[in-house]
């Protein structure tokens, strides 16, 4: 491999790396507000209809939600480990870790799809024939409107992350990264960890209420 050189507008590689990190965090700030709007709607309506939200949350599949949380947390660990391995010149091993994380993402999506199928068969999609009736029906519908929009937006982010991790893994395998040049690795890692972080909050808001 030739010695990596900074792009022409940077004096050094570490300056280039710092700029990439700042740029990624700026993008993530827009993502915080993107998901934040959805979470705000949840908070307002949960405040308004607490018993309906508790009743609706009891209908979600907590075992699948918890398994998916463990899967995403583990995938984040694999990515952080892989980034470190690639930096230290263990490119092939790093690729294995990054691809394992991508595979975890696929497993997450498969479980999520199975969960959607269960919910559709239980008439939990908020259209005609919604399963929850009575005085809490309206608020429960709002909960499931939030549920389907928030989890679908999140799943879209997971899907993008899988592609990014697969591509970065392939480059790591080819020895593209080193202690001197690793900006794409950390930027891809930041994205994946952010998707993990969004899920941590979705899990607490969707699956945990109304269980006691």
């Amino acid at each position, binding site marked *: 491999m030739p010695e990596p050189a900074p792009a022409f507008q940077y004096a050094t590689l570490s300056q280039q790396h710092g700029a990439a*990190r700042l740029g990624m965090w700026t993008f993530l700030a827009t993502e915080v507000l993107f998901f934040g709007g959805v979470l705000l709607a949840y908070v307002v309506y949960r405040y308004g209809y607490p018993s309906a939200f508790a009743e609706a949350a009891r209908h979600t599949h907590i075992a699948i939600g918890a398994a998916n949380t463990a899967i995403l947390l583990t995938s984040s660990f694999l990515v952080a480990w892989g980034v*470190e391995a690639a930096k230290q010149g263990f490119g092939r*091993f790093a690729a294995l870790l990054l691809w394992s994380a991508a595979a975890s993402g696929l497993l997450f999506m498969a479980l999520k799809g199975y969960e959607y199928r269960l919910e559709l068969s239980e008439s939990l999609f908020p259209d005609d024939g919604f399963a929850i009736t009575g005085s809490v029906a309206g608020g429960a519908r709002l909960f499931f409107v939030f549920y389907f929009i928030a989890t679908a937006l999140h799943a879209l982010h997971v899907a993008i992350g899988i592609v990014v991790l697969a591509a970065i893994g392939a480059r790591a395998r080819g020895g593209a990264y080193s202690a001197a040049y690793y900006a794409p690795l950390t930027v891809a890692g930041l994205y994946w960890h952010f998707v993990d972080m969004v899920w941590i909050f979705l*899990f607490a808001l969707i699956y945990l209420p109304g269980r006691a």
Partner: protein
Amino acid sequence: MRYFPPPRALTISWLALLGLLALTLFAAYQPLGAFNTVVALTIALIKAAIVAALFMELRGDDGLTIVFASAGFFWLAVLFWLALADFLTRPGFPPRLSPWL
């Protein structure tokens, strides 16, 4: 293929995250009343902080990067503050919903 052991801090973070997941599941089934929500969100915040500090390496970052990373959360706090100041003080909120919404 050469093996690279996981850095200790990352392994500990991962185990702590799984431990917190188990804890929040256990706590969700305890009859704590309004505190169930407080506990669930506190644990979620701790998990997010571990991910940000260790996995996203904010712990070793310079001040400028931390300011950039905090910016989104700062504006999110403003969004919640102004929006909730409206909805939580609005007469007639929440509106009565018909069963179909």
